[in-house]
């Protein structure tokens, strides 16, 4: 099956920043993304879990964007403007997509 190169960018970020991040990357022209829930995790600030939490403060979300290789830099820069002072974890993976015209 015919596939094309693309990049899969995964951003794990504090839930209260989700809206800002999505607005910023949308403005940077990245209008395709998917948000996944996160149950818990661990990092330099210790372990945490969403269980029983009411406030958004104690949670994170994972945002997955699949973009053409040439657009990844614009996305990363836009994302970074939001993530910079925060704890967001950003990773980029090479991938193949079908229907490349969509990305």
């Amino acid at each position, binding site marked *: 099956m015919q596939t094309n190169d693309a990049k899969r960018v995964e951003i794990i970020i504090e839930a209260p920043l989700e*809206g800002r991040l999505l607005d910023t990357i949308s403005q940077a022209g990245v209008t395709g993304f998917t948000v996944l829930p996160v149950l818990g995790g661990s990092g330099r600030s210790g*372990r945490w879990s969403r269980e*029983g939490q009411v*406030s958004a403060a104690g949670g994170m979300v994972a945002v997955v964007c699949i973009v053409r290789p040439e657009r990844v830099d614009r996305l990363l820069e836009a994302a970074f403007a939001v993530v910079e002072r925060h704890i967001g974890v950003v990773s980029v993976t090479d991938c193949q997509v079908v229907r490349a015209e969509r990305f």
Partner: protein
Amino acid sequence: MDTIFSVMAQNLVSPIVLSFALGLLAAMARSSLSVPEAAAKALSIYLLFAIGFKGGASVAAHGFDGSLGAALVSGVALSLAIPFIAFGLLRAMTRLSAVDAAAVAGHYGSISIVTFVSATAILATRGVEYEGYMVAVAAAMEAPAIIAALWLAARAGAGARMDRELWREVLLNGSIVLLIGAFLIGALTGERGLKEIESFIVSPFKGVLCLFLLDMGLVAGRGLRQARSVLSAGAFAFAVLMPLAGAALALPVAILLGLSTGGVALLMVLSASASYIAVPAAMRVALPEANPSIYLTLSLGVTFPFNLALGIPIYVALAEFLGGA
């Protein structure tokens, strides 16, 4: 003095306090007991809707006695002032950085609605009346403390950002909107509206509160277990002293406002309580340098249980004593 001990004793064996204790102990012992996030949120929506609605319906029944405006202004002033006291105490009692201290201080200026709800449950058990509009005062006290905290942080050199977007987020925070919205619905539909949904928002209220406090206990216990290392003895002491200081500041204000016995108790409770929903979310956005483990643990893990077990009975007993009740 007698009253204090009798209220405390009565309080300590209430299903509400014991449910919190159960959650706390279970989490400390690393039990797998947990309330799903969605269920906890649903319980909090129920509590906010019910307490807001009942407040509004009570205002519709008894009318405003004119003091609402003064009470709102006083609430805002308390919410703005308390962070300065808290900041001073924190710098004196702990070695927290100025940024961490500012973030913590913001929490204590704001309020905890579950503490408020638990206090109303105790007042109801004791048959003490309060102004229905205290719910509106609670809502008004949520946000001002955030400004004070960010000002303190900015003075300490942290680039705290309070942009328009954050303002919108804070003022239209889900819990504030629901509380005020339900209050208005209650005020508009009045006694008739209350009668229609009474068997949903009044009769099962205390039982729902028990389950919510079970969950709060679990979250607090997990937090305490994981954050023990980051907290000093001084910080713990602060988290017990500060609510008493807040309540002490509120007491003369409440008396000057001419509030009823229950109203006096509730203004003390609001001032004594520390936020764990609106302020933490705002701080994560505006003050990411502050360590969330510190402010969440102090607010939810120390001050909340202190108020629930000892603080509320003290404030209620004082209010009853002074009110001649």
